[in-house]
Structure formats: C-alpha cells, structure tokens
C-alpha cells in the first residue's frame, strides 16, 4: 500500500510555506515570524530562494510584456455574441419562417393574423366585479363589455362585432367609421363600454390593429358576408387581428 503523502517539510517553529511566500511578496507579517526567519537557516534559505526566483521570473517575463500578452488574450477571447452565433444561426431562420409562413399556412387570405393575448375583454354586470372573458365565455343581454389592447408600438385600433343575426357593428370607437389611435404599451382599458343587445347565438369580436388608420366599412362588409359561418375570419394587409368567440345565453 502506498504510504500517506506527507505535508511539506517544516521545522516545529517554522512558519507555513504560505506565510513565507507572503513575506517574500512584502505582505505584513508578525514580528515574531520575521525574527524567526532571520534566525532560521532553513526559512532564510527558502525566503532567499523565493526572492531569487521572483527576480529571475521578472527578468524572463517583464511586466510590460505580460500586459501585452493579456491584451492579446483579451482581444482573442470570443465575445458572448460570437459564442451565441451558432445558436442564432439555427434559430433565426426558423423564427422567420414561423412569422412569415405560419399565418399564411393557417389563414385563408393575405395579411397577418395573430390570435394573441394583446386583446382583452372584460364583462361588467350590475353589482358584480368585472370578469375577464375567454374563448367561448358565456354572456347575456345587458352585459357591458370593456376592451383593452396592448401593442409595443403605437397604431390604430378597431374592435368589430359580428352577432348571431349576422349584424356587424363597430364597438371601438363605438359606431365609428374609422379606427381610433392607440398609444404604444397601452395597458389600461379603453374608455367607454358597450352594452350587448338581445341578438341570440354566437358573438364574434375582432380587434384589428394597424400601424396606419383603417376604414371600418370594408371590414364590416367582409364580416357580414361570413354571417352564419362556424369560423368567420378577418384579415387585412399589415394588420394584426385578434378574435374572441362568445356564447350568448338567453
């Protein structure tokens, strides 16, 4: 069996190697240690060896040369972006394909359709707190709806409704003929509310966001054409369209 590895040889009164090393670098050391090193031949020789070693080291590797080496090493180190390049190279084309081709594959016309969380609707009922509505939430005549739409950039917004009777209406700006301006990052609910009428069946809401102003009439006409369809859709060039289907209970 191999014998245990002995620690560095050291006399009973001698300081540890690390203390001698700190002393050779001029770090503060207790007086007693200094006195011992001056009197101890082994410690004195070790200190001398360290000092000689440092002088030889610096002659062979002067500080200015070392600093230039560090500069070259720093310059050669790849930046985090460079390290990320292979990942980006793989991810970006896929992302572009999803954004550009995705809506075309799932939609049935030109333009960009997003069914995202940007469009939020709450319902207010007398004596109750406002409740967020999700796909296929139940609503009834007299419910008051409020809308919020969040976009990272400023633009124009229309909220349209297609009711169970095939009627299409502008809900925001209420009964307007064109879209209303929307500030970037607008998280608050839009002013005003809309009261639902007695039209039975499915209610569709469409939020149409565009960087440019939109006329409501062509979009309303397109919705009316799709009255009675199970899944009416709405697209327009350069727009983002979010939809929400509600079930109106009698």
């Amino acid at each position, binding site marked *: *069996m*191999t014998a*245990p*590895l*002995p*620690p*560095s*040889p*050291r006399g009973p009164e001698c300081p*540890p*190697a*690390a203390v*001698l*090393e*700190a002393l*050779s*670098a*001029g*770090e503060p050391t207790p007086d007693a240690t200094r006195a011992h090193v001056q009197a101890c031949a*082994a410690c004195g020789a*070790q200190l001398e*060896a*360290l000092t000689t*070693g*440092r002088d030889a*080291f*610096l002659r062979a*590797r002067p*500080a*200015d040369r*070392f*600093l230039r*080496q*560090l500069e070259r*090493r*720093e310059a050669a180190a790849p930046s985090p972006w460079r390290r990320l390049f292979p990942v980006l190279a793989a991810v970006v084309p896929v992302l572009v394909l999803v954004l550009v081709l995705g809506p075309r594959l799932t939609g049935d016309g030109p333009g960009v359709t997003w069914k995202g969380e940007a469009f939020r609707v709450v319902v207010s009922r007398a004596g109750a707190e406002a409740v967020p509505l999700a796909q296929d939430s139940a609503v009834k005549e007299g419910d008051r709806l409020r809308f919020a739409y969040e976009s990272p950039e400023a633009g124009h917004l229309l909220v349209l409704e297609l009711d169970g009777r095939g009627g299409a209406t502008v809900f925001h700006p209420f009964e307007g003929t064109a879209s209303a301006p929307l500030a970037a990052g607008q998280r608050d609910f839009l002013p005003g509310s809309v009261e639902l009428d007695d039209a039975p069946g499915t209610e569709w809401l469409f939020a149409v966001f565009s960087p440019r102003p939109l006329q409501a009439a062509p979009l309303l006409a397109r919705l009316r054409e799709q009255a009675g369809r199970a899944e009416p859709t709405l697209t327009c060039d350069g727009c983002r369209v979010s939809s929400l289907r509600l079930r109106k209970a009698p």
Partner: protein
Amino acid sequence: MDDARLAELYERYGFLVHRRCLQLVRRPEDAEDALQETFLRVKRYGPPRDGGATLAWLYTVAARCCFDLMEKRGREPVAEESQLAALEERGDGSTEDADRRALLGAALRTLDGKTRTIGVLHYLDGYTQDEVAAQTGFSRKTVGKKLKTFEDRIRQLFAGRSHEARR
C-alpha cells in the same frame, strides 16, 4: 483595474501565482495559461479585497483558473520527469513524493470545495492539521477526515497511473 496597478500586482505576486499554478497543473504551458487567466480576471473584476491578504486572494483565483483549465482540457495533469526533478523541497515536499505530489491538482479537481480548501491549505500552503482547523473553523476531526479522503483519491490516481504505465 488600470494597467499600472495590474503591473504592480504582477511584479509583486506574478512569480508566486505562476508557481502555484505550476503546482496544480504541472505543465508549464498550462501554468502560463492559468497565470494569464488569473490576472485577466483580476483586471476584469477589480482589485483584491481591501485589508485582506492579497496573496491568499490571488491563490484562490488562480486555483479556480487551474481547475477550470483542467475541466476544459478534460484530462489530468501529467508531470514531466524534468519538472519532477525541479520541484522545490520546501514548497512541494521531498523529491521521493514528487510523483504522487504531481497528482495534487488532479485530486483537488475531483473533490468537493471543503476538501479542496483543506487540501490546498495542508499540502500547498504548508499548514498543519491544527492550523488548518483554526483557519477554516472546521473541527480537527473533520480536517483529518477530509485529508484522508484526499489521500485516498491521490492513491487511486497514483494506482491508476502506475497501472497505465505497466500496460
């Protein structure tokens, strides 16, 4: 940190840091690499702690750089015969232990942080077990047990190397 301060630190401690790196990684080219990486980290992350022991702090950074380098290279350090012969007795133990001492860095790399700290203090900094206990706050018994773990690891590595050499 500016270049003037860095140059000052290098002139005062560069030799000792290089020596410590050599004790851990053994290959001169790796020690050079670890020395540069140590001072680059000092340059990037600022000066040593005020009022603390600068050398001890630099040794900690250097050891981290050495272990990182070993991980990166994915191999254990191998000492050349000429290096073993040149080991200083005071810093590295007797020449009879040189071949096993050459495995210190490899053993340290595979152990947990506590055992590593104790191993460095005992085998490289030259503190006795009692002094290690006083410095780290661990009990004398814990220090003894950790050093035993350390010894066992070195024995394993040494046996593996001897076996490799015989094949």
